């Protein structure tokens, strides 16, 4: 089996300040990787480098494309990268406002990626949008409503549907449950877990919430000050943390 | 039989004759002399020169007369005249430190070398209508002090000597010309300044005011405002020497603004710059504030919410010839588009009523 994503010696600086440094990891098909750390640890920088939103200073991000096999997404052209972003990748923002078009109906939001890759049959686009609304537990009769009318949890589920409609293989998620009530979080996590399993999706999930990674992630990377300080199987890292910082992180959660 | 909207040509000619008649007004009153406008409505003339982007007080006065006092219409006349003029080249940078000063103030220092000169200003006048102006009566000449000998250095140069204010880059070898190349964004600062100096006074004033009220706040002091005549010279390669060919009146404003510093730079004052033809200090100060606001991104300040910091927004909308032309074009016939819209509205209404009737 070939890895879906291979990150080699990835570094990104902001001026003299280190964003993230010398990150290496491999993600296999169907695997979910969690990245935890406090704000400023470099986890969002890393995620944005993987998504092509930020250009890393050095390093390679090898993605196994459907059409052309392994390609370094750092050196590919912007049109190629945008094509991947529409077809093979999903990006879920923490704030659904950043990932949705708030002035466009739910159906239009879900249909955009289909149209961007050439769908031109209104009836089929709509049918797929309805199907996906159902899959993320939004009543399909609300297809013509705008996200403004939706609750926070619904918006987040709509953002997920909008991303998954083109059948991506890699989902990059930035604090997908942040800013939601605890009960809403639980429902979303359940939904995410179901989708990831059913679709065989690989994912990189950035979060500061250890409950999220315990539920979703097969493997875990812990970041501090731009560096990966510990990585391993999720249970292993959480139950037997080696690095002092991880120990602190785990114990602080337990105290809550 | 109805004939579709004929007679446009005659209507236009008649309208233009009417306009000429109305411009002249009551024939029992003397016709306004262009020189009178130039001398007695000098600030209106200055505004037309600044936004018209052409330094010629007589033409600006003529344009004001032709435009019946409508400043933007007069600016428009000057602009279209200006664009037909050949471009011989660019002048050398004017030396505002060698300005023959008629007004010079600083809000940052009580006293400065060269002194503060209030000059012919409305400041500190009581805004009470002077009814005696209705009657022509002699006005005594103002007393004049001797002009300071030699150049009067800029006040901010004293801050510069201490390293407290960010130095400005030397003039680039190739200065772009807004009137010769399409404006591309993001634009270099020279292009931004060119757009601002001919930008609409009211628009710049509102933007500058918005920064003072917190929309992109960067607290500004008027470091120096100076008005006076500067000499314009050009280097003529064919002759191999410089010639001086004009003295022009300009207003210059340098603002002093806070800057918090960043990871790479220590805290320092920064500068906004305004330079405008004529005595147009509202425009010059506004320009300096907007110039500084537009530097927010370059200086790593927080952006995203204030219009004055949004280069594309400011530069696309500051020109009053563009904006008034487009605004007023909606007076032109739009029968065809409106007809298409009518059909768009009628059809669903027809369908809806048909649906209702079918249901009944």
């Amino acid at each position, binding site marked *: 089996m070939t890895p879906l994503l291979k990150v080699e010696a990835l570094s990104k600086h902001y001026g003299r300040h280190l964003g993230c440094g010398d990150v290496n990891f491999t993600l296999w098909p169907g695997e979910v990787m969690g990245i935890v750390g406090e704000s400023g640890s470099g986890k969002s920088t890393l995620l944005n480098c993987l998504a092509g939103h930020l250009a890393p200073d050095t390093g390679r991000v090898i993605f196994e494309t459907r059409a052309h096999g392994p390609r370094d997404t750092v050196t590919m052209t912007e049109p190629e990268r945008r094509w991947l972003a529409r077809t093979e990748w999903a990006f879920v923002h923490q704030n659904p406002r950043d990932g949705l078009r708030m002035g466009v109906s739910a159906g239009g939001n879900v249909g*955009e990626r289909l*149209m961007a890759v050439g769908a031109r049959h209104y009836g089929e686009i*709509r049918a797929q949008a309805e199907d996906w609304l159902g899959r993320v537990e939004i009543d399909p009769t609300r297809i*013509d409503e705008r996200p403004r009318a939706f609750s926070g949890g619904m918006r987040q589920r709509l953002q997920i549907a909008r991303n998954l409609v083109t059948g991506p293989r890699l989902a990059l998620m930035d604090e997908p449950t942040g800013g939601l009530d605890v009960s809403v979080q639980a429902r979303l996590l359940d939904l995410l877990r179901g989708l990831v399993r059913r679709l065989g999706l690989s994912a990189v999930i950035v979060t500061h919430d250890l409950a999220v990674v315990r539920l979703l992630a097969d493997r875990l990377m812990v970041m501090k000050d731009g560096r990966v300080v510990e990585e391993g199987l999720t249970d292993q890292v959480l139950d037997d943390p080696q690095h002092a910082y991880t120990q602190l992180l785990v114990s602080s959660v337990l105290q809550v | 039989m*109805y004939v579709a909207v*004929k007679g*446009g040509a005659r209507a236009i000619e008649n309208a233009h004759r009417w306009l000429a008649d109305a411009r002249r007004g009551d024939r029992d009153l003397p016709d306004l002399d262009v020189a009178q406008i130039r001398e007695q409505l000098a600030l209106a003339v200055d505004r037309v020169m600044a936004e018209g982007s052409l330094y010629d007080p007589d033409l600006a006065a003529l344009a004001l007369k032709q435009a019946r006092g409508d400043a933007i219409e007069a600016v428009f006349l000057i602009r279209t005249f200006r664009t037909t003029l050949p471009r011989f080249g660019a002048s050398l940078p004017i030396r505002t430190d060698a300005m023959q000063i008629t007004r010079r103030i600083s809000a940052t220092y009580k006293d400065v070398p060269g002194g503060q000169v209030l000059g012919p200003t409305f400041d500190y006048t009581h805004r009470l209508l002077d009814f005696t102006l209705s009657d022509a009566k002699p006005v005594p000449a103002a007393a004049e002090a001797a002009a300071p000998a030699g150049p009067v250095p800029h006040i901010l140069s004293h801050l510069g000597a201490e390293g407290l204010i960010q130095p400005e880059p030397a003039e680039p070898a190739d200065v772009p010309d807004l009137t010769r190349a399409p404006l591309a964004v993001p634009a270099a600062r020279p292009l931004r300044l060119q757009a601002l100096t001919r930008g609409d006074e009211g628009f710049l004033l509102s933007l500058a005011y918005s920064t003072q009220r917190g929309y992109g706040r960067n607290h500004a002091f008027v470091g120096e405002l100076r008005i006076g005549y500067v000499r314009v010279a050009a280097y003529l390669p064919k002759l191999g020497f410089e010639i001086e060919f004009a003295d022009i009146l300009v207003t210059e404003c340098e603002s002093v603004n806070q800057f918090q510093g960043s990871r790479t730079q220590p805290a320092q004052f920064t500068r906004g710059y305004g330079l405008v033809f004529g005595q147009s200090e509202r425009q010059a100060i506004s320009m300096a504030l907007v110039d500084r606001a537009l530097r927010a991104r370059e200086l790593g300040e927080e952006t995203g919410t204030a219009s004055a910091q949004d280069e594309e927004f400011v530069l696309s909308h500051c020109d009053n010839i563009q904006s008034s032309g487009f605004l007023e074009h909606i007076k032109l016939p739009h029968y065809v588009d409106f*007809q*298409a819209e009518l059909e*768009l509205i009628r059809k669903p209404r027809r369908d809806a009523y048909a649906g209702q009737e079918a249901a009944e």
Partner: protein
Amino acid sequence: MSDYNFAYLDEATKRMLRRAILKAVAIPGYQVPFSRREMPMPYGWGTGGVQVTAACLVPEDTLKVIDQGADDTTNAVSIRKFFARVAGIATTEATAEATIIQTRHRIPETPLTEGQILVFQVPIPEPLRFLEPRETETRTMHALEDYGLIQVRLYEDTARHGEIARAYAYPVRVEGRYIMDPSPIPKFDNPKLHNAPALQLFGAGRECRIYALPPFTRVESLDFEDYPFTASKAAGQTCAICGAEDSYLDEVIIDDAGGRMFVCSDTDYCATRCAAQAEDAA
């Protein structure tokens, strides 16, 4: 009138404009920036079209100018007079006789032929502008062929109104590449853009853009397979003057009791048909 150069603009400016026009012809549908001049009429009143026309005119040309399809609307009269004055060229109202036609909001009903140039006045050249106000963004979207957003707008229309609710300035795709604003012509005229034998040039003065459709260019109006584009006009009406059924009609209110009639918006087309009918009768 000899104070100005032929066709008003100086030759250096015309050369600059012609370079932009040639580039536009070479990349159909692509908006070429050009350095516009202030013209002696306001921005928004056809300065882009006037500059393009000025750059194309030669002394042998015969110019026709229409606004809303008519030769006699005020702005058409004004522009025609301008060129008659600064270029001394012949003018005409007959579509077939013109070598250059400057137009605002219409394409003539009489089919254009090879060798003719149709110059459109364009207010907002950017078809994506109402979705995205930033030029930096829309430029990127064109460069990367990132056109999902405009299709979303058509989807929204269809979801809300059961059809694509665009009556004029209906966006087209040129040779399968650039999405282009055909200027605010009614969508009734869109099919005339496709495979036209004439050269079609578009000038936007205020926005400094020129774009073009070379003769015989593929131009498709955006739509959905199951909601295909239709070139509509006033339903079931014919011209009250010439009886034409195939032309675009203006609605005219004739009394204050709701009475109205429909007449050809293309005055030359209407007059030509009337003349032919009179001849037949005689």
